[in-house]
């Protein structure tokens, strides 16, 4: 879907360029574009700052004495602690300081990439996350890619048809969008791993092991994006440029793939930005069902054991992923619809 390809003649050299009043592109284009990029990055920083602050506030608002909680997590049992024990922990984590100071310390740490130390594992949170992030990112990206494949194939095949196929198309979208990850994962596991034996039961790090977990995340997402895409697809099918293409001798399939599809994917791209972030939370369930390593399992463990630095670290990470995903969405938007570049 590139805008210019080899069949358009090479751009004439500056000297030979015919004198034509350009309609809108003037040489000063770089400055507004630069400003837009600066605005985007500024917005991203604000979002991350907000997420970090919210995570800190939630941590501070939790009931109970923090030092006691930390000691109990380490010991694995809930008992009263002596003031001496608590003083040492307070000293270590700076808990005796006023909240504002704690907050500033925390934000200051974030600025240099320090997410704190895990209560339970005695390791820096960043290290805990980095160890586990790989499989989760692989799972998320595979899931989003799979959902696009499924969605595009299904919508292109069924949208705007008459008769039974048309009804089936929309019904399948809605049903798929409503499937809970937990249930879908178990069904896939039962049928394809235990029943047919096509895939390993414990998915592990292998390439084939990622298929079922990714499908579990991809199917509901495909249904969800399919609903939005189908509406646009059917609207585009009625557009005059489609009739023009048919009048040129293009067949139905050609029109769907070459003209209509491109017009109908914009809402799905928007959703993908959200989905890249949301599949991380879906990964929590899926990684548990398929016994996969990953950030989801770390998060579940950290929440259960009240290992707050890890929880907040993951929250900030997810926020960062959302920000990155949305920047990618903006980029994809102008690739698909170049008109937005000048808007």
């Amino acid at each position, binding site marked *: 879907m590139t*805008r210019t390809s080899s069949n358009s003649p090479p751009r004439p050299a500056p000297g030979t360029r015919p004198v034509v009043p350009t*309609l*809108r592109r003037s040489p000063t284009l770089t400055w507004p574009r630069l400003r837009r990029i600066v605005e985007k990055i500024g917005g991203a920083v604000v979002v991350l700052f907000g997420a970090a602050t919210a995570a800190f506030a939630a941590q501070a608002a939790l009931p109970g004495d923090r030092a006691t909680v930390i000691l109990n997590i380490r010991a694995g049992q809930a008992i009263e602690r002596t003031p001496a024990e608590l003083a040492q922990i307070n000293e270590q984590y700076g808990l005796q300081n006023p909240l504002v100071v704690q907050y500033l310390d925390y934000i200051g740490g974030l600025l240099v990439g320090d997410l704190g130390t895990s209560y339970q594992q005695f390791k820096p949170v960043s290290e805990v996350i980095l160890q586990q992030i790989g499989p989760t990112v692989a799972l998320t990206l595979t899931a989003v890619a799979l959902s696009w494949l499924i969605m595009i194939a299904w919508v292109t095949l069924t949208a705007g048809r008459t008769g039974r196929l048309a009804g089936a198309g929309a019904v399948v979208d809605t049903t798929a969008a409503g499937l809970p990850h937990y249930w879908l994962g178990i069904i896939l596991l039962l049928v394809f791993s235990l029943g047919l034996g096509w895939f390993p039961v414990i998915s592990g790090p292998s390439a084939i092991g990622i298929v079922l977990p990714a499908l579990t995340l991809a199917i509901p997402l495909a249904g969800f994006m399919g609903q939005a895409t189908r509406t646009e697809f059917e609207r585009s099918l009625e557009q005059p440029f489609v009739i023009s293409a*048919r009048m040129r*001798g293009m067949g139905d399939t050609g029109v769907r793939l070459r003209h209509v599809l491109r017009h109908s994917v914009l809402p799905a791209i928007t959703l993908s930005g959200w989905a890249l972030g949301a599949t991380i939370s879906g990964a929590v369930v899926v990684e548990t069902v398929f016994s996969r390593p990953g950030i989801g399992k770390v998060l579940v463990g950290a929440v259960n054991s009240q290992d707050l630095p890890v929880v907040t670290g993951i929250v900030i990470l997810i926020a960062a992923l959302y920000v990155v995903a949305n920047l990618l969405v903006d980029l994809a938007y102008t690739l698909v619809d170049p008109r937005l570049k000048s808007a």
Partner: protein
Amino acid sequence: MTSTIDSVHAPAARTPTPRADTPAPKRGRLSVANLSVAFRRNGILHQVVHDVSFCLEPGQCVAIVGESGSGKSVTARSIVGLTGKNSVVDAQSILLDGDDLRAATKRQWRRIRGRRIGFILQDALVSLDPLRPVGKEIAEALALHHWGNRRQRAAKVIDLLRAVGVPAPENRARQRPDELSGGLRQRALIASALALDPEIIIADEPTTALDVTVQAQVLALLAETKERGVSVILISHDLSVVAHLADHILVMKGGRVVESGSADQVLNDPRHEYTRSLINAVPSELTRGKRLGAAPSDTATTPAADAVAVSIAPRPTDHDCSGPVLQAVDLVKRFTTPDGTVTTAVDHVSFALERGTTLGIVGESGSGKSTTARLALALSSLDSGTVTLLGQDWSSLSEPRRRALRREIAVVYQDPLSSFDPRWNAERILLDSLTDAAGLSTAAKKARVVELARQVGLPQEILQRFPLNLSGGQRQRIAIARALAPNPSVIVLDEAVSALDVSIQAQILDLLVDLQRQRGLSYLFISHDLGVINHLSDQVLVMKDGVVVERGTPDDIFNRPAHPYTRELISSLPDHPRRNP
């Protein structure tokens, strides 16, 4: 898998191929005999085209004329087998160079479309894929029929664009329709239809939505194509467009051909009542001060004689009424485009609108006429200059202070559909516009709404309908009723009749004239259509690039144009069919 657009050519099995037993009476390049089209909706067949027959010779132009809904577009699309979803096409024969198209398979159709029959649709902004450069669209027409290789196609695209008169085609081929002017993109669309030198070109309203000078260029291009021996089927609601090009004219109404004959006969000696009304509906210099429509039509009751009208007769105004009702002095409005360049959309424009008169502003798209309208309505802020409404300073007021005066000035746009809430029925739309009726009971308000509807010639039943279920003419009547509701002194009409068929346009223009006479309204009438401006205006401004290049009475402007641009505009006017007494 059923296709979405391909239509079902039903009778191929029922009637044996006519070539075998009944030789076609006349063998042109294309001959259509007794074409009928129906659409299946909820299991019921609705017949939209009845027994249309015509014959097209090489180098000839057959025009199909009629208002929207007359079946003219459906007829044209049936010829290329793209009638639409759920359609059933029935014909005695559709012969293209002796081949019966009714029996064509999907594959054969695809070889015919684009290669043997080219099709040009109305608005290139949406008829070319808006996301792709126009060059790619033209190359696609070539590639679909396996013409040449990539490099040859790229070269051919440039040649084609040059042939249709696109300057600097190498650059234009890389631009998208929205980056090209209306004329250039329409040429690109035509180039894509002409790509493979088809024997027949079908042009469905090819100049609607184009400025008059661009329209003249596109028609000249089609005439040139015809000269080369290509047969043209031209579809339009406007007889004056058709007069330029057609050798033979079919006039359609309600799916039937009501008149068919040589262009000369149909335009100069129309036999059918409907053809005559179509010719008379074209507004021009000759129609000034006369009614365009025939007798009051069935839906439109003339409100003139109604006694009830007294309740909304011109009210004695408490404002100073000695000077002009609306006056603009040295209006300037600049815009900054996203890339930082500043354009002056309105450049020192002044005008005065006298009570009970019409001031026409004519110009092509981008001339600043609509921006001028927005400034007059105080919907945009001014960079400099002043607007005075009923002798009071209007442009410099703060919005809350302005609101009291706002009901003195109303507006009607080109496309009322987008200015109505689609979930409100006509009654609610009008109730909402009764801004000064706060103290009235619901029943009294409803009575006023019914009265407003009568004023604009709409029966009461229409009020329960939703905008989508109203015809274009009915919507525009509702829009006018909404503008009348607060009883304004001035109505700004921004291309208010431009989207309407000629016959509906005639009715709306007549209505505007009636309302002006009864209520002493003043109109600021903005249009790109010189005929309409000439018909309606007392004073005319000609705008180009934000500047008023000429002003005067219609007589001055149209008969003694001083500025070269005005002369160019007037020379672009299509030949007017002779008006019948």
